[in-house]
């Protein structure tokens, strides 16, 4: 079956611009996660949705970052006024719920110039 799909796979933007990153989870997965990964590092937790609501957004670095999942399926991570330090691979994952394995997409590589 289809896995987790992330679009775009690559995004280059200028400092100060707004970007949206999309995640299509596996059908039927109620939990959805966003992580950020820099080169040579482990994934850094950003936010976790259970259904439509953000169950834990403690990993969002500041108020420039926002994520939504309005219908409990597709999620969008939004970054305002991008900074060069936002450059990283943004990973999305979905699961059947807490305590079950995560299924990851291949990520969106964001480069802020």
């Amino acid at each position, binding site marked *: 079956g289809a896995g*987790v799909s992330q679009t775009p796979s690559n995004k280059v933007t200028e400092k100060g611009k707004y970007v949206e990153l999309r995640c299509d989870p596996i059908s039927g997965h109620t*939990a959805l*996660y966003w*992580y950020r990964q820099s080169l040579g*590092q*482990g*994934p*850094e*937790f950003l936010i*976790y949705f*259970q259904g439509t609501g953000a*169950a*834990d957004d*403690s*990993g969002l670095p500041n108020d420039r970052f926002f994520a939504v999942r309005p219908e409990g399926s597709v999620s969008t991570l939004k970054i305002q006024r991008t900074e060069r330090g936002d450059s990283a691979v943004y*990973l999305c*994952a979905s699961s059947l719920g*807490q*305590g*079950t*394995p*995560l*299924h*990851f*997409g*291949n*990520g969106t590589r964001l480069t802020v110039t």
Partner: protein
Amino acid sequence: SQQGEEDPQALSIQEGENATMNCSYKTSINNLQWYRQNSGRGLVHLILIRSNEREKHSGRLRVTLDTSKKSSSLLITASRAADTASYFCATDLLQGGKLIFGQGTELSVKP
């Protein structure tokens, strides 16, 4: 902040040898999971061990968990060149639903 610490950071072995990676964590967990990541790709789930389990096997993988020491190990037996990847432990915290990843071990298996 990262909860898990893994060692070694990098490991280089010959095909056929066993590879052992260790993970330590700080707070109480529901379960601990191991993932693999090939360069430029997303992570792939390998194995999940619950807090009331001490050892689990899956094919050539063996995972142990010692909750008193807050540590886990991943053993890959009879390694193959295709096992070359980064391996991450991740802890499912007792409070909340998020999964926190360690920094990873980069494994290189030479043919």
